[in-house]
């Protein structure tokens, strides 16, 4: 029940944010195209090197970094609220 309510609240908040936040494409289309082309070109080397596993490892590292940095930021925010004068990340 508790998490049911929490999930519904999260869903409502996400909806609210989704309606409030602007749709900005901060990357030019040429850049995303370049990434797409780069990915396709990269995969052509899969026969000699395991690009697929490399991608999986990179995704893992990126996800770790995102969570790790988020955690550090949250902790530093808590420390700031508790009296630290600076935000040390």
């Amino acid at each position: 029940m508790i998490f049911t309510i929490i999930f519904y609240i999260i869903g409502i908040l996400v909806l609210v944010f989704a309606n409030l936040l602007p749709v900005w494409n901060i990357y030019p289309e040429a850049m995303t195209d370049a990434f797409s082309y780069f990915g396709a070109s990269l995969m052509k080397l899969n026969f000699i090197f395991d690009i697929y596993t490399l991608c999986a490892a990179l995704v893992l590292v990126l996800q770790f970094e995102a969570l790790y940095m988020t955690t550090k930021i949250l902790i530093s925010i808590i420390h700031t609220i508790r009296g630290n004068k600076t935000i040390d990340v």
Partner: protein
Amino acid sequence: MTKNEPLKCARKIIGVLAIGFFLFFAAKSVSAANSEIIRFSVWGTGFGTTYDGQGSTVNCYDNFLNPNCEFSVGVSAQQFSYTNRRAMMLLMSVRDKDWINSSTTIMAYYLGANKTTDNYYAIGASVSTTTISIFDSPDYFLNSPEKLSRISDDYYLEEVDKMYYTRWRSFTLNTAGKQFMQDNIGKKVIFTIFSGYDQNQEYIPYTPGTATAYDYYYEGYPITEWQPYIISEEIFSTSTQGNINFNNSSCCADQACTIPINFDNFLNGSTLNWSIDPLICNALGDGDYSVKLDAFNKWPASITINPQAEGVHTLCAWNSGGVADKSLYNIQLNFYNGTSSEYCLPIVFETPGFCTDEFLNCGDFDLTGSLWSNIFCGIKQAGCWLVVPASSSISWVKEVSPKIQNKFPFSAYFDLINSMKSGLSMAEYDDRSGTFGLPMYDKASSSFYMVNVLNASSTEKAIGKDNAILFRKTQTYFIWLFASLYILFRLAPKK
């Protein structure tokens, strides 16, 4: 503006960003937890490659979000040697990657149907009279709805067009009168819907032997791919009292079937009996399996049924007096009537877990029963009611989470990742058909051309097939080693 106002403003901004990050990762984690899928594809075989009835071993790679896997495909000569009959190989999609293990079985079915005029397609396989064709990837069928229109002779989905967002789409799942498996057990169809930003899975239960209409509503980004799979719960167990856990395994017709089981707080001195008759749980059974449990075989053990027969088997527990004590599991082994040693079926079972029906099944409230049992049962039920979210709420978060992915600042991540993903998926993820060439100059035509110096078979030719596979595996190990080392050093405290 006072001296502290910039700091307060910064705190507010950081606070909003932190909430945003939290919401994003919460939604992402919920979404990820529900979208895990492993797709097989055959590595090293080109489209249309056929196996002429000899045993062949192929490797598989799943999508890059999941670890690599391997499996072997055994195709025996007699299995597909019937003319004018169809055989198909159904590459299974599974929900849980932990389910993949050495005993994971690719189901190869021999269909008794005599179809010579219709042109049917199966996911991951093509059918001919004497051979079975293995496509290099089920992805071949993506964006080809006409090829997805028939999954097998017996189960098919109506032909659909590529779907777009904010549209109702109705599917009709039909089962023909003729079934290649005994159709008295539960089956499900799993849809994997890929959009530009997410992938969803929808499970469609249906009553075998009937047509089931299913309305699917997707509001989000244009659906770029979709794949239907049939998940056949060929062998399943239902438990009334969950003290035995079956480990993943598979059973083959006409072969000994070993099912590893864990005994947990099982009745000491009880006799575990394996009976073929679901309605009779007596000491005689069919004699397939009978063992007396004691304190020494309480923990992981295995039961072997040899030979197992098609039908419902009941695992019974006996007390020392030889009187049926309780019927624990019904395990249904269903094989195609024309049994062959090649027909192996995975055991699909529901493991008793936290807050499952089995966990909560502690009987009706009984004033004459044990007070502690009643209290414990109440605590379990109240606790699960309190902390376990309803599936509808998880679905709700999963449904709304894609809406925020193209909004700033989340678009900064998803735009980049999705463009990269689309590029990676443009090439087959198991594609080994690429070549490495050097530019050369042709004097006659005064033009450059590429001389291929390396291709997929170069490594095998140089160091042999086994070494090439070893080389490939070693690459994988090193990649993960470096990734783990990076994370370890990142977490190491700074001096």
